[in-house]
């Protein structure tokens, strides 16, 4: 068996240009698959997992957790009158005049925001009640983008804010600047208006329910997900391409293996005559197929890591860092195995049909 495998690999080495082209072809297909999957995975991790136990009350037909919702502070009285036990105001808007200089701003209640969101403070200290006006806490990615750290000043809508800390949530909130709700209202000239109220899900109001005054109830965390899920159809369209490339890779692999086997038909016939069964010859082909696809997978993984370094995604101000994880790499290895198996089906069937005696006569 070992001899067969060594012989098959020597054959590949003898046709190194051909093997290289095949490896590159498979590598490019796997790269395509990994880039799309990496994007999808990251979007899922940073956006889809967000919906939490709370509800929000916002202006109808808006994605209030990003921007666009503006409601009066008196709505809180309407909510308490309905029996809601707690309503925490929040402010969400963007500042800037283009996608390039856009900054996502969140106004929070300094006394209560830490009960709503789990965050890790990377440096400095968290925003807290009693902080002087114009104090901001920046998400990790925003701090990197602006090149500021805790203790320094950051310009938000032309005003200087003292950065008290840098935080990390692992979600799109890492692109945001968090200030006190009073600062946010003052900065945007909203008076006492807020973007939304966060309320507990006590069964009094239901997601999707409309309230008087153009308000509606939604599950908290869905706004960003809805915004980003608009990219899903694009990824679905790319799925067609991935499927097509997988078929193309199998066909190209089949073509290559059959032709390599054809070039070595005399040697293969001798092996058959010396007692090697067609199953053993399948090992010969499989080791060639696996070498080519594994080489392609390695190139694909390396290429994807490079693509992800240079092609950081920015979806309307919300940047995210697509990356591979162990699960995806394992899936890729599984696919590599599947490609190899599919690629040898036809060549093995062809070899089984060959009569070694005829072959030896033909090639002598």
């Amino acid at each position, binding site marked *: 068996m070992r001899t067969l495998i060594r012989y098959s690999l020597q054959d590949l080495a003898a*046709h190194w*240009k*051909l093997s290289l*082209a*095949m490896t*590159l*072809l498979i590598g*490019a*297909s796997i*790269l*395509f698959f990994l*880039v*799309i999957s990496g994007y999808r995975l990251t979007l899922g991790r940073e956006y889809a997992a967000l919906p939490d136990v709370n509800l929000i009350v916002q202006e*109808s*037909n*808006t*994605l209030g957790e990003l*921007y*666009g919702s*503006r409601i009066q502070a008196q709505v809180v009285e309407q909510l308490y009158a309905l029996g809601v036990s707690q309503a925490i105001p929040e402010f969400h*808007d*963007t*500042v*800037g*005049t*283009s*996608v390039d200089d*856009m900054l996502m701003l969140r106004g929070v209640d300094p006394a209560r925001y830490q009960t709503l969101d789990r965050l890790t403070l990377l440096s400095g200290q968290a925003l807290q009640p009693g902080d002087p006006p114009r104090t901001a806490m920046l998400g990790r990615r925003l701090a990197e983008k602006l090149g500021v750290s805790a203790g320094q000043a950051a310009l938000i809508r*032309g005003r200087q804010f003292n950065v008290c800390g840098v935080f990390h949530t692992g979600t799109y909130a890492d692109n945001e600047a968090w200030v006190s709700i009073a600062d946010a209202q003052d900065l945007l000239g909203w008076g006492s208006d807020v973007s939304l109220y966060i309320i507990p899900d006590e069964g009094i109001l239901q997601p999707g329910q*409309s309230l008087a*005054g*153009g*308000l*509606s109830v939604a599950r908290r965390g869905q706004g960003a997900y*809805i915004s980003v899920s*608009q*990219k899903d*159809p*694009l990824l*679905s*369209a*790319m799925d*067609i*391409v991935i499927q*097509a*490339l997988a078929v*193309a890779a199998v*066909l*190209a692999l*089949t*073509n*290559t293996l*059959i*032709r390599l086997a*054809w070039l070595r038909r005399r040697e293969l016939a001798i092996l058959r005559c010396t007692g090697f069964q067609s199953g053993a010859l399948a090992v010969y082909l499989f080791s060639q197929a696996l070498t080519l696809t594994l080489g392609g997978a390695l190139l694909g993984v390396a290429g994807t890591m490079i*693509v992800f370094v240079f*092609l950081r*995604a*920015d979806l*309307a101000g919300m940047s995210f860092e697509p990356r591979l994880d162990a699960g995806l790499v394992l899936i890729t290895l599984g696919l590599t195995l599947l490609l190899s198996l599919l690629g040898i089906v036809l060549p093995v069937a062809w070899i089984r049909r060959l009569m070694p005696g005829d072959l030896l006569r033909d090639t002598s």
Partner: protein
Amino acid sequence: MIAFLGYLFKDLRHDWGRSLLTVASLSIMVISYLLTAALADAFDEFGSRPGVISHNLVMLAADTIDPMQGSVSQEAFDLAVAAVQAQFGPQSVRRAEPTIFRTLRIQGDTMEVFAVAPVGMTEIYNLALLAGRLPTGRAEIAASQEAVSLAGWQVGQEVEFYGQFFQLVGEVRYEAGKIASLWMTYDAGMALFGERRGFQVGALNISGELDPETVRAYLESVPGIRPAYAVYLEHDVHARYGQAIQDLLKFTIVMDILALSVITFGVFNATSLTLTERSREIALLRVAGFSGSTVRRFLFGRALVQTLAAYLLGWGLARLVTWKHAASSFSMHGMHVQIILSPQVVLPGLVLTSLCAWLAVWLTTHHLGQRNLVVLLNE
């Protein structure tokens, strides 16, 4: 030449099984390339199309990306109109209308909602009626053809949003817009959204004899306009949507390049196989007096025939996919993306794949002229 072609096709026919396999695998690579190229083309068109160059100026709150994020005061708008008339003459402003603007999620799609006086719909925004009529009542709306297509609405039906039912009374074409839009009267907008936030867009239609950019630049220098407000050309406001999809465009272009590289490697692979299989025949041709370049021409002809056949087959299959597959037509951020295999997509692809075939043949045969014939025959 005829002998050359005859020999070429005879060779392909003799090797029909493997030729077919090569064409099949290449054609599927071509499908991948054509689909990604068509996607990139769709985003490119959306991002770069300037819309119709109009003589409209729009006044928005400064430091906003979406006009709905701010408001324009009536005093500032009146000031702008008066300033233009004072500088460029009383006839310089043909019409000025305040417009309530919102970007809303309606039936799962992003749509722009404009509330403007009916006369403003035609005289400023230049809406062209495609079916029905323009809205006049408080519970009536018209929808752009993009909105009708995205939501699958029909004129005459009821549409619900922002907690209220509206009758869709007309379908319109808004040339300057890039995404789906709904239109209602200013009064209807005030009744729906309330008076508290006023209007978001001050729209001025200026005389056709004036240069819109000159008027815009002048307005921005008028005290009382800056720094609270910014004035844009109408098509520039819509062009800003193109920025939002720049990364998607980059992404699809990278995917397109990848798909093209797959074709290159595929053609290189097929040509290398041919050369490897025919090394003895090629050596015999060289011994018989054929030059290296003649042999290369033959191999290129063979690769080109296979590539062109694969391209034709791939194009047909890709057309089938775009015609039948649901994923080939979708909406994103209020724009309708249709994967279309236009000549701008298909023809450059054909040239590029032919170049790939040439490159692959050159890479595998460039050393042919220098090889020792004895060594070639022994191989």
